[in-house]
């Protein structure tokens, strides 16, 4: 599992080659807009990233969520996320509000078992949102965190159509009083950043820190010695829509 995140995705290579073929009919050379693969030293799972150093491809940040511990009615992770990231707009049509993280209630059709869990960007190793983004604004950082570059997002929403998890939101209204560490923008698409600004300082994502039941665990999936990797190695975990082979960085226990 750990090496899948850094392997070149054959599907993406194929589409890029096909795209280059189409481009070649009209142009001699077209270069992709963005190269963000960085080479650097691996960060330890809980270490802050040094200022000026690139994110390391040796690390794959991820989450393990224990659905058995997720309490009905509890929205602490949502509140913490939205406070941390300055997601505060309350529009008359709730479907136009951004939801970086949401609680989902599942009822198993076979036996009626009810499960609660938080759902957010799954930080896929092979993210469809990155494949379809026309400008390269949707990107995967070397350490596996999937982000949107607010400077190059044109607001076409193709990534929202492509995301299997409905994890992305479009900013429908002008924004005020933003958190300086988390720039957002009207007309751009956004989603969970895994609190990248906190992770880079060696902190945990806000949702993980806020969970009173300790249902969420954050860490480096690539480090066999990390708590998250050890737990994943020892208990059955689930990738949501594993059939799509997107290799999400968020895993669920008790689903």
């Amino acid at each position: 599992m750990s090496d899948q995140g850094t392997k070149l995705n054959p599907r993406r290579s194929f589409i890029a080659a096909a795209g280059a073929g189409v481009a070649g009919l009209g142009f001699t050379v077209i270069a992709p807009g963005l190269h963000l693969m960085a080479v650097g030293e691996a960060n330890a799972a809980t270490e802050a990233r040094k200022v000026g150093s690139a994110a390391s491809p040796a690390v794959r940040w991820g989450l393990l969520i224990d659905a058995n511990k997720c309490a009905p009615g509890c929205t602490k992770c949502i509140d913490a996320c939205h406070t941390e990231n300055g997601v505060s707009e309350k529009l008359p049509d709730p479907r136009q509000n951004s939801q970086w993280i949401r609680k989902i209630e599942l009822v198993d059709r076979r036996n009626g078992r009810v499960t609660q869990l938080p759902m957010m960007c799954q930080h896929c190793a092979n993210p469809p949102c990155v494949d379809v983004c026309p400008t390269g604004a949707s990107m995967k950082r070397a350490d596996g965190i999937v982000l949107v570059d607010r400077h190059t997002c044109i607001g076409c929403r193709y990534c929202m159509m492509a995301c299997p998890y409905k994890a992305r939101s479009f900013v429908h209204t002008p924004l005020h009083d933003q958190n300086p560490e988390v720039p957002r923008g009207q007309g751009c698409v956004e989603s969970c950043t895994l609190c990248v600004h906190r992770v880079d300082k060696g902190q945990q994502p806000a949702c993980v820190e806020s969970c009173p039941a300790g249902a969420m665990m954050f860490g480096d999936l690539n480090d066999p010695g990390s708590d998250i990797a050890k737990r994943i190695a020892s208990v059955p975990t689930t990738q949501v829509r594993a059939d799509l082979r997107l290799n999400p960085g968020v895993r669920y226990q008790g689903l």
Partner: protein
Amino acid sequence: MSMFTSNPSQQESRFYLLAAIGGLVSAIGVAAALYMEHEGHVVTGMNNQFVWGLPHVVSIFLIITASGVLNVASMGSVFGRALYKSRAPLSGLLGIAMMTGGLAVIMLDLGRADRGIVAATHVNLTSVFGWNMILYPVFYGLVAVYLWTLMERRMNPYSKAAGLATFVWRVILTSGTGSIFAFLVARQAYGTALLAPMFIVMSFAWGLAIFIPVQAGMYASSGEKLPPLVHQRMKNLLATFIAAVLYLTAVLHLANAYFAKNIAFETFILFDSEFAGMFWIGQVLVGSLLPLALLFHPATSTRTLWVNVAALLVIVGAYFHLYVFIIGGQAFPLDIFPGYDVKSSFMDGAVDHYTASLPEILLSLGGLGIAFTITLIGVRALTFLPHDDLAKLEAAGAD
């Protein structure tokens, strides 16, 4: 049709009136887009469930049809059919006009429409939308060169080569439009390679359905009569394309329904939703079966009026087709947890309803206005009315 015939001064005033109407509708559309940009998409009916709305229905219709209307030119230049060759310039003009209208709507609907230069300079080649940054400009260039080779006598010898290049390019372009949806990995309504060829056939049908009434209007306006031979050939071709779209639609839904995982979606879209009526009545009956009946029934098939009615019904059907496809496809919840009943604060597991707001409707109409105005001015400024050598056509076996 005699109501259209008039003296030159009346024609002059009619042109200015129509140009003013077209210009006004276009300007209102642009104003609506500016309002959306200023206030945000909160003033639209689109949201995080219905990511794409009415502007996408209309712009994708215009883009598909722009490619398809060029089929008339291809029949002439690529396949050597004399009847269609004289219509190639009009077909090229309509292609440029509709493409411009379609692109204007989709670009003006962007969350950051001011970042057009970013879109043009940052091209991600794994994205079909990224390909569009190449596909559309080259389309314009090829059609412009093609029109030049058709309308400038010295360049006529190159028209076949230019026509062939245009033909190949628009097949690629429309495959790209279909692939926008074909490449969506997780949505039940999309994600099938059938969509690329299906969009090409849709473009043939809808393009011809636009061409026929525009041609009729031009003939009527200039007081000339469309030769019955031309009329007969075009209506047969239109009927063939309508039947082909209907066939592919049936294959798409049957194949989807065969997969257990997609039965719930197919039941929803075909029988158990607001889209079922749009599909059966709008798309199938009004957009396909009725036009086919009009084009084949002996009482109507020989009359220009009814062939035009059939073509307009195909356009109405095209609207329903794309509305059901784009809006209906998003109304059904994503199956994120197969085997579970799901609910959340974000419409998970729930069927949703979309209503277009006024700014969206005006922006969409603006795209139609832009296409109309460009066509009107083009027809006025240059010679696009087809002139047929009937004796030659009949001698060639009416091809």
